[in-house]
């Protein structure tokens, strides 16, 4: 299993057409012309779990088969898809009004009850659904997930049906980002039909959603999953008639198969990033993604206690060159603590500390009293990160005059255990790909204890958590953006870890694909794909 999971959408949505016209993408108009017609094949990891509450690698499939309540386009604009509106007076109790006339692929209507029942089912502790954490902010989630014993109820107290098309969601505390949290990549928020709740295994074999594409036949391991456009779909009609999701065990093989023209779209594995542009030219598509990587530092080790040491390490890393060599120039050097694609991110806040300046770095380290011993960089092995961390070790050695080595773990499980337990005495791999493009998601994951990424950056200050909570309470999106930016000001003072890159997700396409649109989660929007003429 590839631990660098990405939210891989495919999707629905009104917003798509908006996104497309907003970008004014060249060629979109003359190619293909008429909407509808044709099919595409997409390389995916075999999902095993196909359904929204459980999938961890089937974002592609999920975003084709289901429609989210809200959609966030590549410019960060939020629009409503399955929801007509999501409103709140106090940011704690939200009223969700659904659009009328929507049906699941089995013909049953999508109602407020469908959402409430689905969310309760996904959150039910004893079933241990992989994505149940996405619902943790709803009041009553803890009752379904008691620390000891079986839950006494099967329903969250925070969910209440008002009428067929309206339900209210009460959160544990005010959270202005709620409409973002029900957007396209938060799959636990998708609705399921009544039949699903009776037999989840059967549902996993034949997923039934409310989205633009319906699954044809049953899912069988290692076999392509065929989907076709759902005739009664109420959202924006997809531009293709069918999508085939073909499982590949090795992303490099999928890449090669796109070269051969046997499959239309594949994501680019790390090992192929430097050559992808040469191999594919214009058929390489690179999307800004809500992912950011840091060089985590062992803040429990006294050698890293002085903030100047941490700043010196950051300034000794030449991000631009590393991006060019390791990622074919496709990653952007990070200049803030959240990805640039997240609304309100104060780009450039990191200032001189994220800029490459070997002399200043060395001077700062000397001023802090130098560094005792070796900088032992530790990262998960076997997932294509070796080049990156070796490059960083080389630069630290050359620019700081300190011995530095990079050592991989045997696999992801070993790395994650050591990091969670704090059994690391050097810098380490630290990354987060947000499922909804809000600074909240990234800041929470890294800087709030139990916020999502355990020990990613083991910097948990009470006042930072309070500042984040205060920003959460802002209902106005712009004010919230500013409040999160203020959190970053505070974090910058302590500079707990050097931000490395704003990530991009890259895809290659066959000659059949003329246009591959994206959204704010950094993945292709397959339902709006434009095929080349004659394809």
């Amino acid at each position, binding site marked *: *299993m590839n631990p660098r999971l990405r939210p891989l959408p495919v999707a629905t949505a009104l917003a798509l057409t908006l996104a497309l016209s907003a970008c004014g993408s060249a060629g979109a108009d003359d190619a293909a012309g008429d909407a509808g017609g044709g099919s595409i094949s997409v390389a995916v990891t075999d999902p095993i779990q196909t359904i929204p509450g459980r999938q961890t690698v089937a974002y592609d499939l999920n975003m084709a088969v289901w429609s989210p309540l809200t959609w966030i386009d590549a410019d960060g604009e939020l629009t409503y898809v399955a929801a007509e509106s999501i409103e709140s007076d106090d940011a704690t109790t939200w009223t969700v009004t659904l659009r009328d006339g929507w049906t699941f692929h089995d013909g049953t209507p999508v109602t407020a009850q469908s959402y409430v029942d689905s969310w309760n089912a996904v959150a039910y502790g004893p079933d241990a659904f992989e994505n149940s954490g996405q619902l943790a902010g709803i009041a009553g989630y803890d009752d379904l997930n008691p620390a000891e014993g079986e839950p006494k109820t099967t329903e969250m107290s925070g969910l209440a049906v008002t009428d067929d098309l309206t339900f209210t969601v009460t959160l544990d505390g005010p959270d202005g980002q709620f409409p973002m949290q029900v957007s396209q990549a938060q799959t636990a928020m998708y609705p399921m039909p009544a039949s699903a709740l009776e037999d989840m295994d059967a549902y996993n074999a034949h997923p039934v959603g409310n989205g633009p594409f319906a699954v044809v036949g049953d899912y069988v391991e290692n076999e392509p999953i065929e989907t076709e456009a759902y005739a009664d779909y109420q959202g924006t009609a997809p531009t293709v008639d069918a999508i085939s999701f073909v499982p590949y065990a090795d992303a490099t*093989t999928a890449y090669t198969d796109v070269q051969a023209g046997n499959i239309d779209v594949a994501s680019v594995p790390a090992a192929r990033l430097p050559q992808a542009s040469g191999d594919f030219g214009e058929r390489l598509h690179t999307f800004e993604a809500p992912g950011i990587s840091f060089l985590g530092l062992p803040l429990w080790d006294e050698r890293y206690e002085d903030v100047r040491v941490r700043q010196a390490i950051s300034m000794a890393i030449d991000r631009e060159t590393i991006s060019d060599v390791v990622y074919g120039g496709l990653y952007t050097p990070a200049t803030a603590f959240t990805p640039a694609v997240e609304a309100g991110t104060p780009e450039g806040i990191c200032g001189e500390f994220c800029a490459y300046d070997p002399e200043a770095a060395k001077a700062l380290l000397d001023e802090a009293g130098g560094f005792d011993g070796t900088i032992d960089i530790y990262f998960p092995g076997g997932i294509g990160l070796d080049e990156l961390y070796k490059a960083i070790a080389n630069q630290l050695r050359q620019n700081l005059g300190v011995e530095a080595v990079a050592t991989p773990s045997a*696999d992801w499980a070993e790395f994650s255990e050591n990091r969670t337990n704090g059994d690391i005495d050097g810098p380490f791999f630290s990354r987060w790909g947000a499922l909804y493009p809000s600074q909240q998601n990234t800041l929470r994951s890294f800087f709030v204890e139990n916020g999502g990424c355990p020990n990613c950056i083991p910097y948990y200050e009470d006042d930072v958590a309070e500042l984040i909570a205060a920003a959460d309470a802002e209902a106005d999106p712009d004010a919230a953006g500013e409040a999160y930016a203020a959190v970053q000001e505070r974090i910058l003072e302590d500079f707990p870890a050097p931000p490395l890159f704003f990530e991009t997700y890259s895809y290659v396409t066959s000659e059949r694909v003329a246009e591959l649109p994206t959204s704010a989660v950094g993945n292709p929007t397959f339902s709006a794909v434009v095929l080349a003429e004659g394809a």
Partner: protein
Amino acid sequence: MTRRVTRRLVDLLVVFLGVTLIIYLMVFALPGDPIAALGGDRPLAPNVVAELRERYHLDEPVLQQYLRYLGGLLQGDLGTTFQGQSVADRMALRWPVTITLALTAWGIEVLLGVLLGLVAGLRAGAVSDRLVLAGTVVATSIPVFVLAVSAQLWLGVELAWFPVAGTGAGWPTAYLLPAAVIAVFGLASVARLMRGSVVDTLRTDFVRTLRAKGLRERQVVGVHVMRSSAIPVLTYLAIDLGYLLGGTVVVEGVFNLPGVGQLLFQAIRAHEGPTIVGVSTALILVFLLTNLLVDLLASVLDPRIRHE
């Protein structure tokens, strides 16, 4: 004969118990919590992790887990993966792919290897012999990964003679290229073994006698030399079949063939005890059985072994 077979079968049981225990212990000794790693770098909620650890009995001591596994096995239950699938079902889906691949490769080895070895052996020292020799040296020295990727790029992408990946095209189209790639090493070994064996046999007294009594050369070679030379080659081929069934991880990965090699590789990465033990035990059984078969076959081919 019956006694020998029974004894070998008892051996099988002992090996089976030992191997499953050792593998189970090794999986358990792998560092890291497989459940915590299930979600990759987007970790699962702590309560989900706790629930899953309990569900798959990972909170129990290793011996208890092993006994639970053996108990299930006695009832024909091979266990489940951490995503709740039956290991038996997964293996059943994948064995046909690996068996098809291995047999195709094996067929190539037998046909080409024996033929080349025979040609080289009959004309020892001639140009054709030297060519075969040089060819086998080159073939055995190229790593299978390099061969697989080059073959894929050249014959799959550039020339488009074969599909690049997947089993979609069916047998034989989808299997020929990967099978040829894994067959290369064994093929070279078979050819060299066969050559040596043929050269030796040609020098024996009985061949001279056969020729002296006027038997046609075709019969001398086709029946007697072949039969006598076949024993060492056969032993190798049997072991190699076991190797082919278990050692195709790389090629299955490169050509995206969903076989057991790939399953084993993924299971090891996910620290999935039941799958690892299930697959490797099956592989070991295949190995032991093919060896048993060879021993029996050898005694059919060679009267001396039969009467020992």
